[in-house]
């Protein structure tokens, strides 16, 4: 029964494959524009296919972060082929405030998957707090260990290892005594 099911699915896939491929064959191009309207930041994606605007197409917007893409919203194109999204104002954009915005068409019935990337300085500028990052502290990095901590631990390590080394020297001293006696 299972084999039969797989067979049917494979046959159906083979038959439908050209249709699906054909359906998604259309190419669309996204152009990103950024506008400030009434002190509101708006990100507009203009979708054009074969020199005509594309209507009612879902566009997904993302901002590139360190490990993956952060979804910021979704909008549908109007009759002019334009999808507008109110841009969030609280996304950290590092020291320069630069954000990489990505608009995507994914899994649409008619259009192939595509994406456009555009940089815009709409991010919140994040300045490193020198008090926090380079402070000598218990949570600091290896080079930012507190001085008292390093001095105390080094002194303990030196005292104990110094004693151990002294004792090893004593063992060799025993050997020296023995060779002196032989002479």
């Amino acid at each position: 029964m299972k084999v039969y099911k797989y067979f049917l699915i494979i046959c159906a896939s083979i038959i439908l494959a050209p249709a699906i491929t054909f359906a998604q064959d259309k190419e669309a191009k996204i152009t990103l524009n950024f506008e400030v309207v009434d002190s509101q930041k708006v990100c507009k994606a203009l979708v054009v296919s074969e020199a005509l605007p594309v209507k009612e197409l879902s566009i997904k917007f993302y901002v590139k972060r360190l490990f993956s893409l952060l979804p910021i919203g979704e909008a549908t194109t109007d009759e002019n082929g334009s999808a507008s999204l109110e841009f969030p104002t609280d996304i950290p954009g590092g020291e320069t405030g630069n954000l990489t915005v990505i608009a995507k068409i994914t899994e649409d019935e008619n259009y192939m998957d595509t994406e456009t990337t555009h940089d815009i300085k709409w991010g919140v500028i994040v300045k490193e707090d020198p008090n926090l990052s380079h402070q000598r502290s218990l949570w600091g990095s290896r080079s930012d260990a507190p001085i008292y901590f390093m001095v105390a631990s080094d002194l303990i390590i030196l005292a104990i290892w110094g004693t151990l080394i002294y004792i090893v020297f004593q063992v060799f001293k025993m050997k020296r005594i023995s060779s002196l006696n032989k002479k």
Partner: protein
Amino acid sequence: MSENNFKNDKTTHETFTQEEFMIMKEDLLRPVQHWGFWGKVWIAFLVVICMLGVYAYYIQETKSKYVTVSLRDYTMWGVYISNFVFFVALSLIGVLMSAVLKLTNFQWYRPLSRIAEIIAVAAIMLAGVSIVAAMGRPERLYHLVIHGRIQSPIVWDIIVILTYVTASTILLFIPLIPSLSTCKNHLTNKPKWQMKMYEIFSFGWEGSPEQWKILKKSVKILTVLVIPLGVSIHTVTAWLFATTLRAEWDSTNFGAYFVSGAFLLGVAGMIVAVFVFRKAYNLEKYLTEMHFDKLGKALVLMACIYGYFNINEYLVPAYKMSGLHANHLLDLFTGEDSHFYWLVVVFGIALPAILPLIPAMRKPLPLTILAFFVVIAGWFKRYLIVIPGLAHPYLPIQDVPDSWRHYSPSLIEMTIVAATFAAMLLIVTLFSRFFPIISVWEVAEGKLEGKDEIINYK
């Protein structure tokens, strides 16, 4: 007999008294001289277990750890870390049986000190091996040295283990020097390399008064040094837990609790070791019933101290039963770990605190059986400190596969743990087959009236 053995110029500086020489010749060199059939079988058996462990480790390292080991996001420390804590605890045996008794002028430590020290050295080495097995990839140890932060308890642990291994090895080695000289002079039919080894490591020992003076001074300094070192190694091990945010480990009691537990485990381990050496090497003359009597009393004392810290550790939070603690405490008292928990309380704390109060229980065999259970309960005690602590984090565990909630060690993990035990026993066994397991001069010195007599003896 003595004239025959003091025939050349070199042996006129023979270090030992006549009595001591007799003891040695008759009894203490025998296990080194004759290995015996069963002695070899025992070593072969241990080697096989060790090899199985090496193979299991090879599988763990070549296949993904997620395939071979049941450690997950919550219980990321499993039997490897509980085994590590167990071995660190066992290594404190050297501090108690050798250093503390020596400095407090108890004379009965003398035949026990070397047994305690070799167990300490072997245990602390295998503690290091357990940590490397837990790390997953061995090169992480190197990364810890290169990138480790001095503020981190893991780095303190590495430093203190390394220091303790070194100090214990030197403390084992220095009192061994006169024995090595004895082996060199009196062992026969041994391979050339073995005799050469005795020759090199006896460091030209002649037993001259200057040499005795240096030896005694060095041992004394090390004996004093090893006590704070031993206490700090186990306290730092406790801090690995206490500085981590888990309800069970959030305790100011932890360092003392761990150290007292280690002393209990040390005494129990010592009883088992003394019994085995006594029987296997026929050392009844040196490891006497008096030692079992003293060790039995020490077991009661240590179990009482450990019991006191356990009450602080479990019953005080249980009285309040705050939300965070209730979670894991109820699990231990009445929940899924309760069987384990109560068995450990009974065999690991209650029985050793009560039974040896009866004089008949301080005889070698019954005391050893009891001590054996204490050692096993000691291992499971560490298991109960590590695993239920991890399985009850501050934030409730939600939306995870059921296998992540409950930890049970895989076959690979258990094989590696078994191999660490075998390796420890192998180190101790091989040591006792190459060197006299009882420090002859310390025993003889104890029998003589004053120290001057042995220092100035020629």
